Each structure stands twice: as structure tokens, then as C-alpha cells.
């Protein structure tokens, strides 16, 4: 009996087997690809070529606006996508850097959350606010008043620590929050060092504690900043939002009188901008979140009244204080709900052609043409095609009068049974 050995199979040699030299000649331990299938299963799954992992992004619509010298408004949608799947319908894209400077973020969720959280923690530590929670001294006490309808409101007054030492404390308090310049510089430096790998587009807006004015900045993933913008929109739906902002902010009735914009009008502009992004961009959706930051400067008084310090310091209408308010409205516009299926109307129409109803296919409605199966085609139309040359059908063949004349001209007798003469000129 002959044993057939298939030499094409490369058998893994045993360790104690003496192999000929030319077995090792052109093999090396670095040749991963030359191994047979059995040993390539030893490769880790990560070493095999794989598609890049789907990152959870906030393909989003974010917008920011400054109203006069009093308000700064940031708005965002709340959809986080992972490829074509919606990973989170209630994502929070408005991140708090300090109680009065917020950042709206677009890009990769992880990068945004990490960068903003890192920034917030760094400046809490660097400006001494962390001490209040650990030790005895320092720290800023600010009232957090829960609101019934919206989120939390943080009201910072400068009179929370002490009454007599109000002026000195005011300077200390307002300077212990980081300025907008410091925050933006820190963020830009982090992003520049990652050379664009950290995909974070930020709109940083709020009340700068040093100047007590609303400010708006946009920061891009490579670390560049735009600081002279009165309004901004970023994200995949940012172009749609920018169209709404440009049209209503600059070309509308506020073109020559920007100071006439009220808070309600500004909020409606922002909501419409985010709505435009939600409607026209697949990466944006769900609800709209808002944060409104407001600074109220003290009313100007003549000098003589400054010496009389009032004792009711907790009053919000105190003349000497600058009040900065943060109003975070989560779900300012909730996600619209679809009506149940039974209430949706369906269109069913039928055409009244002679051939029967031509109803739509897959809900597309009616087609202007009608498709009919071949078996229903009129028999008269079959003259176009040559019939097979079968004996019983030859008698039923329709005689083309032109064909007989042509055949007479050409000298071909019509009595022949070949089918080559049946090609008529009418066949096109």
C-alpha cells in the first residue's frame, strides 16, 4: 500500500526532530505572515488589521451669544453619537469651568469631558478654592438656590463673607476666581501640545471676574482661539446655527441697534439656532440645554453715600455689590415626542386605469407608469419578435406584406423554412 504524502502541507516539525538545513534557510522568527494558518491563530486579535474603533462623538450643535454688557448665553443640543447609533440622548454638553464661566463642547466626548474637568479642577486648586473643602481657611461660600422650574441657580454676591470687611473681601473674592484669559490660555496650551489629537472644539463663555463683563471665546482642536466674536456656533450643525445667528443678530433689526436685544429675544434666537442644527444635521438632536450668565453692575452713586454702609448685606439690591448669576436650564426645550402609530395618517390611493390599479410600492405612493407582467401583454405586440419555427405555429404566422415584396426583390422564396428570413426591417 502506498502512502501518499502531500508535500504542499507545511507540517510543523517536532522539537527533537533533526531538520535539514534548508528548512531554516528562509524562515525567520520575524516572518509572521509566512506562517501557516495554525500558527497565525497564535496572533493576538489586536495584531490583526482592524478597523479603527468607533469613537463616541458629540457631533453636535453648540452656540454662544453675548447680549449687551449684561448677559452671556450658551446653548447646546444633547445627542451623542457612536457611528450611526445614538449613544446618549441626554448628553451634557455645557460644562462648568468655574461657576460663572461655562464651556460648550463639540468633538469627541471623552476628550471634552476630560479637558473641561481637568481645567475646572486645576483652577479650583490653583486659585485656592480647594482649601475650603479640606482645611479651615479660605474658600468661597456661595449660595446655591434650587429653582422650581429649571436647574440650579448659583448666585454669587460679594457680601457673603463678613460685613465690615466687605471691600477688602470683595477684591479677594473676585480675584480668586480665574479670569477668562487664564482659562482660555490653559485650555489652548493643553490642546496645542496634543497637536490636534485631542478633538475638542469649545465655545467658552461667561462673566470674567476681573472685568465683570460678558466674554465669548472659541477654541479649536489645534489650539487656536478667536476672541473678538460677538456670537459663535460650532459642531457639525454649527453651519446651520450660524446661519440663524447671522440672520437674526446682524441682518435683522439688531443690525444698527444691538443694544436693544432683550434677554427673551436672545434666548429665542439661541433656541432657533440650535433647532436649525437639530433639524438639518443628523449628529444633533434631542433636547436643548441653555445656560445664562448675567452680571449686574452696581448702580452709580455719589461719593457721600458710600460712607454709609448698610447693615442689611444679604439684600440683593445692595448698591455696592456686583452680582453674577448663573442660570443653567437643562432641557430648556424638551425633546419632541412622536405621536403613537395609530394616529399617523396613511395615504392609499388607487389609479383607475384600464389595466387595473397601480398602487404604490413600499409606501412611495403612486407611480406615473404601471408595471404589468409579460403574460398580459397584448398579443398583437408580439409581432416584434420572431416566433420560433415550429410546424404548428407556422400557419399562424402573421404575414408581413412588406416582407413578401422584399423577398421578391431579393429573390428569396417565402416558402423556405429557415428563420433567417424572418428578420424584418421593423425590428429595431
Amino acid at each position, binding site marked *: 500500500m502506498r502512502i501518499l504524502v502531500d508535500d504542499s502541507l507545511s507540517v510543523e516539525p517536532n522539537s527533537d526532530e533533526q531538520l535539514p538545513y534548508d528548512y531554516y534557510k528562509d524562515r525567520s522568527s520575524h516572518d509572521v505572515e509566512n506562517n501557516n494558518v495554525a500558527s497565525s491563530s497564535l496572533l493576538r486579535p489586536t495584531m490583526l488589521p482592524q478597523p479603527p474603533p468607533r469613537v463616541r462623538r458629540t457631533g453636535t450643535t453648540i452656540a454662544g451669544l453675548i447680549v449687551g454688557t449684561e448677559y452671556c448665553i450658551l446653548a447646546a443640543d444633547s445627542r451623542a453619537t457612536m457611528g450611526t447609533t445614538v449613544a446618549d440622548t441626554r448628553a451634557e454638553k455645557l460644562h462648568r469651568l468655574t461657576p460663572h464661566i461655562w464651556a460648550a463642547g463639540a468633538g469627541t466626548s471623552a476628550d471634552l469631558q476630560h479637558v473641561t474637568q481637568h481645567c475646572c479642577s486645576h483652577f479650583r486648586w490653583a486659585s485656592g478654592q480647594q482649601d475650603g473643602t479640606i482645611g479651615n481657611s479660605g474658600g468661597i461660600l456661595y449660595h446655591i438656590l434650587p429653582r422650581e422650574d429649571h436647574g440650579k441657580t448659583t448666585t454669587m454676591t460679594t457680601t457673603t463673607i463678613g460685613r465690615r470687611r466687605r471691600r477688602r473681601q470683595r477684591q479677594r473674592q473676585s480675584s480668586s476666581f480665574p479670569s477668562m484669559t487664564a482659562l482660555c490660555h490653559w485650555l489652548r496650551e493643553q*490642546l496645542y501640545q496634543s497637536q490636534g489629537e485631542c478633538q475638542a472644539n469649545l465655545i467658552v463663555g461667561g462673566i470674567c471676574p476681573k472685568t465683570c463683563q460678558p466674554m465669548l471665546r472659541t477654541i*479649536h482642536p*489645534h*489650539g*487656536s482661539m478667536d476672541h473678538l466674536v460677538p456670537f459663535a456656533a460650532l459642531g457639525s450643525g454649527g453651519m446651520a446655527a450660524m446661519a440663524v445667528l447671522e440672520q437674526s443678530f446682524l441682518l435683522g433689526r439688531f443690525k444698527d441697534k444691538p443694544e436693544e436685544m432683550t434677554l427673551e429675544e436672545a434666548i429665542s434666537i439661541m433656541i432657533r439656532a440650535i433647532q436649525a442644527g437639530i433639524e438639518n444635521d443628523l449628529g444633533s438632536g434631542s433636547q436643548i440645554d441653555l445656560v445664562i450668565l448675567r452680571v449686574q453692575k452696581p448702580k452709580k452713586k455719589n461719593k457721600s453715600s458710600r460712607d454709609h454702609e448698610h447693615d442689611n448685606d444679604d439684600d440683593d439690591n445692595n448698591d455696592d455689590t456686583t452680582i453674577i448669576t448663573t442660570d443653567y436650564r437643562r432641557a430648556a426645550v424638551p425633546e419632541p415626542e412622536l405621536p403613537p402609530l395609530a394616529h399617523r395618517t396613511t395615504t392609499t390611493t388607487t389609479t383607475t386605469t384600464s389595466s387595473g390599479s397601480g398602487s404604490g410600492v413600499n409606501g412611495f405612493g403612486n407611480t406615473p407608469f404601471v408595471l404589468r407582467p409579460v403574460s398580459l401583454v397584448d398579443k398583437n405586440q408580439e409581432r416584434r419578435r420572431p416566433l420560433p419555427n415550429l410546424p404548428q405555429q407556422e400557419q399562424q404566422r402573421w404575414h408581413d406584406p412588406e416582407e413578401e415584396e422584399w423577398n421578391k426583390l431579393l429573390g428569396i422564396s417565402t416558402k423556405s423554412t429557415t428563420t433567417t428570413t424572418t428578420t424584418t426591417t421593423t425590428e429595431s
Partner: protein
Amino acid sequence: MYSNDGDYPGLKDGEVSTGTTIMAIPTKDGVIMGADCRVSSGIYVVNRTSDKLSQLSEHIFCGRSGSAADLQALTEYVRFYLQQLSVETGREPTVKTAAHIMRRICYDNKERLLAGVIVSGWDSVDGYSVYQIPIGATCLKVPFAISGSGSTYIWGLVDSQFRPDMTVDEGRALVKKSIAHAMARDGSSGGSIRTVLITPTSNDRDYTPGNQLPFGPTGF
């Protein structure tokens, strides 16, 4: 939205560029620097009101063109070094020093940066001077300078109209006219025009909105 196809070949994907028009013209009583206001990322204008004339020192300004992030970082480094230098030496830095610090940083990071800069201003040693540092980090002292992607369209105009001793008004008018012509033909430049007049005593900024350009569409 953020793809860079037709822009500078060295820009990374999604990077914001100030592909621009910047220029500096010395006149009898001051140096006038001008720039457009457009910051673009691919075909989308990210910011149409930007300020590309950064102040490095009291009387030294620089005009930026190239990658926005690189240039903002660069100007901050140079500003820092100039401040340190002025503290150590006890006097204002010269324009030559500022230009060469900028050149040094650009040259040492040549592979990683995409930056073309014009440094100009006044100092008590040389008076008014203009230095140009194109991509590649040469440092050239020039009688006048134009730079950026839009500058290629106005070389002839500026060459023919520039005179060494112009008045401030003539210089400003030349700067605005040249930048307006560049903005009309270059896609990466546009918006409005910002100028600054640098003198020993003051820096006088000026802003020309987009519907009042000396040349170009003014229908809106």
C-alpha cells in the same frame, strides 16, 4: 466642515489657518501694518472678525499668516521672551531682536510649524524697521513687506505704488487699497481690514468694515 483640501499644503486635517494678506509699510511718521480678518478651515470661514496684528512689545507688532494655532503659540513665546529681555536689560527691546527671536524659534521647529510672519515697529536704535520671516525661517530686513496667500496678487500693485517717504494718510490708503485688492482675488482673505499705525508715542488702530472697502463688493 473642517477638511483642508485646497489650502496650504502643510496644514493638518481640520486645522484652522489664517491664510491671509498681511503687509507693513513704513512712512515718514510711523509704520503702518495691515491685515484682513478671515480665519478659515478648509472652505468654511471660522472667524470673519479676527485680529492678525499681535502686539509683541510696546512698539513692536507682528502680522501672522499660516496655521492659527502655531502662530498664537509663537507670538506668546516671543512676547514672553521680549518681556524677560526688557526686564534684564532695563530698556525696550528692538525690532531686530524681536525679529530674530521669532526667526530662531521658527527655525528650530521648522518641520513642525507653518508660519509666515512680518515683524515691524519702532525702536530708539534703528527707528522704523520692517522684517519679514517667511515659511522656512529666513529673516530679512526689507523696505516694505507683504505676506500671506493673498500677497501674490498684489506684488505688482505695491511695487508700483510704494515710495520711501510717504505721509501717514497716503501709507494707510495704500495699505487698505492693496489689501482690498488681495481680498478680491484670494479666497483665503476677506472680511474687513484692520490696520495699526506704530509711532514712538502711540499705536493707532483702525478698522474698515467689509462694506466700506476701497475696492470690492460693497452691495451689502
